[in-house]
């Protein structure tokens, strides 16, 4: 199972767990799997049309999925996925 790191603002939906597991095979499936495990979370990660919100970045093993294949990017069993608010950092 891949490990998914949950950012602070979403932890109230994951019962304060900072890491959860998922057997999803790509990012789209991962978001649906998270929704099945933690109802309401998809609404926070995605816009109404299902696209990932502009203020959320998703990384697979340290690589921004926008440098990979976006929501279609495949996920392997030993991957670590991070969901990070885009607003953090820099000036």
């Amino acid at each position, binding site marked *: 199972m891949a490990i998914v790191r949950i950012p602070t*603002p979403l932890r109230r939906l994951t019962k304060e767990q900072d890491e959860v597991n998922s057997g999803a095979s790509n990012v789209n499936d991962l978001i649906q799997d998270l929704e099945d495990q933690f109802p309401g979370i998809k609404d926070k990660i995605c816009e109404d049309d299902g696209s990932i919100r*502009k*203020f959320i970045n998703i990384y697979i093993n340290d690589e921004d999925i926008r440098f990979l294949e976006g929501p279609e990017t495949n996920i392997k069993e030993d991957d670590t996925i991070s969901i990070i*608010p885009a607003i953090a*950092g*820099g*000036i």
Partner: protein
Amino acid sequence: MSFVTCLKCIDCSPACEFEKQALYVCDDCFGPLEPSYDYERIKEELTIDKISKRPKNMWRYKELLPIDNEPTVGMNTGFTPLIKANNLAEVLGVKNLYIKNDGVNFPSLSFKDRVVAVALSKAIELGFDTVGCASTGNLANSVAAHSASAKLNSFIFIPSNLEEAKILGTSIYGKNVIGVNGNYDEVNRLCTEVIGSNKWGFVNINLRTYYAEGSKTVGYEIAEQLGWKAPKNIVVCMASGSLLTKIYKSINELVDLGLVEDNQTKIYGAQASGCSPISTAVKNGWETFKPVKPDTIAKSLAIGNPADGLNAINLLNDINSYSEDVSDDEIVSAMKLLAETEGIFTETAGGVTLGCTIKMLENGKINKDEDLVLVITGNGLKTQDPLVNNIKKPFIINPKLDEFNKIKY
């Protein structure tokens, strides 16, 4: 004395409101938060006369900064010189040119001293005893220096390949410095995960809502130093894009408060070509940016995934403004030009600002006949590496008069 009523999401409509706390993104959409001020009360309280009687530091505009009590950090920060740059103006063919020189800010020689002063004053109000940051260097210097004098613990995360001067200029203050093998975006991501497991105040993450407001003091000072007049054009370098949006906001606040007349101020962005997600989006008319992997000598601007990139792009498009980018060679040439004409040694980021200004004057985006202010954000003593092979070497002679007389200049 607080004039901040709540924190508001700038992306939701209607805006979500939150209580004042160490919160940096909207619960609903992850959009950025901004303090919301009671401008009616500020209008009654804040007058030019009142400001001019206060000490010459950034806190003379404290009503417009997001703290609830008297400031405790940065009592000597800000009010850096605004220089009428006649020599450079002549070279560029510009009528009235000014340099706002934050390369001589206190205590750590960059504009970051302003934002950190606000963030740490707020951190103390919120009860944090440990603060931290992810930094490309200048922020690290400033958090280390300010947290030393404020007697706060600090953890400072930097990319391990930073300029030696910026590492030394952080480590000297005796704080915890962590060099991470990765670029800024990776350091930053690590820090968001560190916050999750520690109750610390990270100035540019969970204190960011307050921290970013400190940049407004650059704009207030420029207007005051011009004799309470809003400039026509301002050029600012961009890393995350926050400085640009906050300076623009500051001028509009002064107009709305009736402290300056509206001069239809325009603000222009500047990036290094090796890391120009915002400029590339603006130049191509894109609504959003594509993140990039930075490769530039302007390391203080090397943020490939800019947090306020969207805001900056929206602003530049809304006001029909522009943004440029310059190569590493152009950056070095501009650094030399500023030093040779005005005696100001800026860091690479300042070379980006001047280099892009030259381009925008040449391509007609900036009108040479209108007042122009360049914001210089950091000091050249910190980024000497790229200059080593680009600067004339000294003449080496023995202590003999005839050897001196034989030198061909």
